[in-house]
């Protein structure tokens, strides 16, 4: 059973990263339940129990709004990410919801070809293990506290 959960989490993570890295941002909110929580914060904030993050969303509609803003509203230079994800660490499973942690590295490549290690950290996830698993909560806790220029695309 645990092995099955691990495989589902790994598949979910791989599909999630692929959607963002392949510029199919419109699919990104679909990895979450409707009443989800998605936060990007720093390890310092997380450790200190500070709630505010760089991104703070408590509904899937807010994720839709972020995608719409990136597509239609915000000004930023063309860029793409490459998510390199570690294996999910399954912390527990209760009532069909898995608690898991997955380490990430995100490499950002800019329009002009410059490539940088943009963020490193871990996802703290609660995942509904349905037929198609969905994030109930995904907190991207970045080890880095400095963010170069801007963070447009989601982590």
């Amino acid at each position: 059973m645990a092995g099955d959960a691990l495989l589902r989490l790994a598949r979910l993570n791989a599909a999630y990263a692929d959607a963002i890295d392949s510029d199919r941002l419109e699919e990104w909110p679909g990895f979450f339940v409707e009443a989800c929580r998605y936060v990007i914060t720093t390890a310092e904030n997380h450790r200190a129990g500070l709630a505010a993050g760089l991104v703070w969303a408590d509904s899937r509609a807010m994720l839709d709004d972020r995608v719409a803003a990136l597509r239609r509203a915000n000004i930023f230079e063309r860029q793409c990410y490459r998510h390199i994800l570690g294996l999910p660490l399954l912390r527990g499973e209760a009532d069909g919801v898995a608690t898991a942690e997955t380490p990430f590295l995100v490499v950002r490549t800019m329009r002009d070809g410059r490539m940088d290690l943009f963020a490193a950290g871990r996802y703290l996830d609660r995942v509904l293990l349905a037929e198609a698993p969905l994030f109930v909560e995904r907190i991207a806790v970045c080890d880095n506290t400095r963010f170069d220029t801007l963070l447009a695309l989601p982590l």
Partner: protein
Amino acid sequence: MPTPASTARPPEHPPWPPGLTRVPYWVYQDPALAEAEQHRLFQGPVWNYLCLEAEIPEPGDWRTSFVGRMPVVVARTETGAIAAFENRCAHRGALICLDTAGRGAKDFTCVYHAWRYDLRGVPQSVAFGRGINGQGGMPEAFCLRDHGPRRLRVAVFCGLVFATLDPDLPDFAAWIGPEIAARIRRVLRRPVEVIGRYTQALPNNWKLYVENVKDTYHASLLHLFFATFRITRLSQGGGVIVSASGGHHASATRMPAAGPDTSYQGMRSDEPQFRLRDPRLLEVADEWGDDIQLQILSVFPGFILQQIHNSVAVRQVLPRGVAETDLHWTLLGFADDPPELRALRLRQGNLVGPAGFVSMEDGCVGGFVQRGAAAAGAAQSVIEMGGAEAVSQETRATEASVRGFWKHWRAVMGL
């Protein structure tokens, strides 16, 4: 034999044009000028923001911060006062405090050779100062008290901690003037609580970011979120206060009038078709007791206090190189926030910071100038909206406070 036409000596900067409406691009590019700014400006006659009083509430609590590039320790002393001193051991120059913050310190000891300082940065003891078994040690004539790190004058205003190395600078409140002081009090009137922090690394000279903050003209043109959702439009009431020195400012946007506003028709930043699926981002709690829904305030050289709806934050601008700037954000709530208001602040936090629907654009636009003007050191930017003066105006369709920045900067730099 022909004589060489010229040597390879770099060209002198052309003289600064008279008035405040032109700024040459070399001011964002010249390493020698950036070096001079450290001494004349940051370590000179200005009050530098260090941290919040709420971040060091008890005696022995401390944080590390910066005055320009100078590392500084800010500590709450035994008497409850706040002291600040250069984070540099008097012995060999190592950092005295290595971490970002700490609590309950009795004193500070340098890790290198264990020289010890009190909470005010006054040296207390030298390890093995008398040597070992009568051999070695410091000479009799050595006077430890003569060798402390530089200590700064500290000012606390509405819970904000500022410091200066200038013994003659007027008190903080007098220095910023009554109008700016009143606008700080307007926002910071209750005890604050830090709700989050992060740093945005900007690819540009620090002055380009400070100009952007003071530039009331750009906000509704660059930021579609501001214009489309009427968070701030130039057609809404409001204005800008510029201090007598020019260096400090407070801009305000009043609530929009009911009914249609066609002044932005056809502009990129007005997208009437753009709707939010979760409009709670735009909910506002009336907590300020006036009709100002957005206030941006700056204290020269690099402090910003932001109130956008219910999103409150302070920002510290620190140069890290000629074309590198760190922008330290501290997001605030008030200690007595009810849960719904706190949730509102967290949600509105999506407007600001590196991922902010508004602030991400301010993060990149300074780099656009830094790169665009890379070969234009002798050319000048045009800062003429709203005239040639650096005075308060009843409109935000002006660059008055940008001119004010240069008025103050030039007075301090002697340029």
